[in-house]
């Protein structure tokens, strides 16, 4: 079974250095990059599926030219190869451009399942997977808590998180599945995985290689732009209760009751 996972390098939320450039774009040089956390859940799900059913996992990303370093971390978790789409025309691209570029890159690939994270920690729009499915004409199975492919039947069954439990969906493959944390914690890369990742194929393509013109997808034709931004107010200082257990419990209960948490 061939699985493609969409991954995006995002500023490391733990570094706390996310900031925008004066023209409202994310300043990617200001912060170390990591694989978007939701994409790691998708990758973990993909790796488990190929362990169970055989096959390979490929990564596809649209990102700045420095992304291979971040993609290597995803390869170290066990992905077999990666494709990075990067182009000088792409910085500032909107979700529509991103969707068109990814769809163009995926047209050249053969896969049974296309997995994506629910959203990214930088942009957070959460619409790219749906857009890709629409452009490629793929069944779109969102908010998966469980993914059960039947390679022989050529179908996939997904438990979709619903307000009252799960919806069970079935679709023919290839299909796009949006992954959630319910699929399980991503693995730590093993040291051998890190070593092996260095020799795995990581191809790079530009817009021209995909036959996409900068009129269709680029920063210049962005359909959205950031006009203003405000930093969230700083969190009030943490209150630490250092009383003996009985008194601490009383104060904790009072604290939560004041806020109607209990």
């Amino acid at each position: 079974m061939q699985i493609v996972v969409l991954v995006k390098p995002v500023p490391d939320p733990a570094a706390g250095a996310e900031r925008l450039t004066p023209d409202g774009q994310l300043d990617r040089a200001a912060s170390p990059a990591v694989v978007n956390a939701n994409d790691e859940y998708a990758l973990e799900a993909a790796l488990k599926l190929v362990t169970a059913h055989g096959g390979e996992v490929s990564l596809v990303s649209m990102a700045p030219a420095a992304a291979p370093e971040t993609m290597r971390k995803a390869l170290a978790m066990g992905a077999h190869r990666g494709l990075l789409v990067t182009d000088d025309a792409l910085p500032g691209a909107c979700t529509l451009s991103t969707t068109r570029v990814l769809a163009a890159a995926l047209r050249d690939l053969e896969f049974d399942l296309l997995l994506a994270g629910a959203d990214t920690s930088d942009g957070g729009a959460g619409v790219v997977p749906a857009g890709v499915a629409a452009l490629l004409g793929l069944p779109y199975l969102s908010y998966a808590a469980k993914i059960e492919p039947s390679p022989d039947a050529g179908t996939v069954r997904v438990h979709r998180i619903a307000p009252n439990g799960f919806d069970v969906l079935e679709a023919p493959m290839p299909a796009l599945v949006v992954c959630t944390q319910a699929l399980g914690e991503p693995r730590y890369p093993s040291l051998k995985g890190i070593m092996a990742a260095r020799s795995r194929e990581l191809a790079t393509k530009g817009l021209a290689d995909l036959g996409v013109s900068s009129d269709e997808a680029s920063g210049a034709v962005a359909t959205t732009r950031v006009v203003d931004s405000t930093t969230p107010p700083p969190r009030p200082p943490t209150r630490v209760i250092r009383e003996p257990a009985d008194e601490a419990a009383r104060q904790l209960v009072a604290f939560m009751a004041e806020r109607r948490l209990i």
Partner: protein
Amino acid sequence: MTPPTGAYRLSDEQVLLRDAVRVLADERIAPRAAEIDRSAEFPEDIRQLLATHDILGLPFPEQYGGVGTDLLTVCLAIEQISRVCATSGLILAVHELGALPILLAGSDEQKDRWLPDLAAGRTLIAFALTEAEAGSDASAVRTRAVRDGDEYVIDGGKRFISQGSVADLVVVFAATDPAAEKSSRRLSAFVVETDRPGFAVTRIEHKMGIRGSPTAELAFSALRVPASNRLGEEGDGFGIAMRTFERSRPGIAAQAVGIAQGALEIAARYARERKQFGRPIGELQMIQAMLADMDAQTEAARQLLYASCAAIEDGAGDAARWAALCKLVAGDAAMRVTTDAVQVLGGYGYIDEFPVERMMRDAKITQLYEGTQQIQRLVIARSLLRDS
């Protein structure tokens, strides 16, 4: 050709491996450290974690299923783990120490027999040289191995053997020629499977630090091992032990640097947060001076360790000197830095609510084992006086 100078620069690969171990240490090992110390039980879960993530496979060549890295990379891993838990860092350091005699002196057949399981972390190995009456004077070993046909019969005992009670294999150094003209030819090295009849663990020491690492007293009574378990030739034992120390002492230096770094980080964080006289104590110059000295000593020890690893890996003729230099400097740095960390934390440093008292207790062992600091000075001085 100019002799190796210890010039090094961390490769991209080394940085990646180091950072991966650091993440694992911070997220999975650090939360266990206090309990490992308190319970004084060998952390089997951490051993499994290190095996699963190939960390125990670092010192082994790829052909045996290991990661096949160099000495510096092994030390980077020991350092990162020891930064949060010295006991856990020691699991890798002892595994390497025990395996080195096989890596250095084992035949192809012996390597095929033992290394794959060791590299995968399925088996653990310990190193048994020290005896009650043979510590710094390693050639005074009294344990005897007597040839009997295709076997040797080993009688005697060992003391202070790290992981001796949890290892599947123990490299035992025993006298095969007690009356040898040269004392360095008295000993031979044997790989002993610990399930053989005649092998017994007779005591686990109660220790000041590295409390989760079982330190065992071993007794051998008519313990029979096949001659094919002997490493090298009869009489090679002492030389094998000394060559082992050239590569294992940097591991202890790495443990020491890690402990120092861990204590430094906690002391610096505490100095930012703890307020006295209406301001953080980090604004007090006396605290600043302590922190600056701690950082300088830790970094100096680290740089000497990395340089030593590079020189040893490059085949330095004075490898024993490099190994002794880095272990001496790092062990002393760890002791000073952890002692000062307790001082920065004041009363809070003296109680087990903060980890620095544990780190101070753990640091002390790095001045003692794999050769006391006095033995390191002896090695360095001999090298110096021989060469000049």
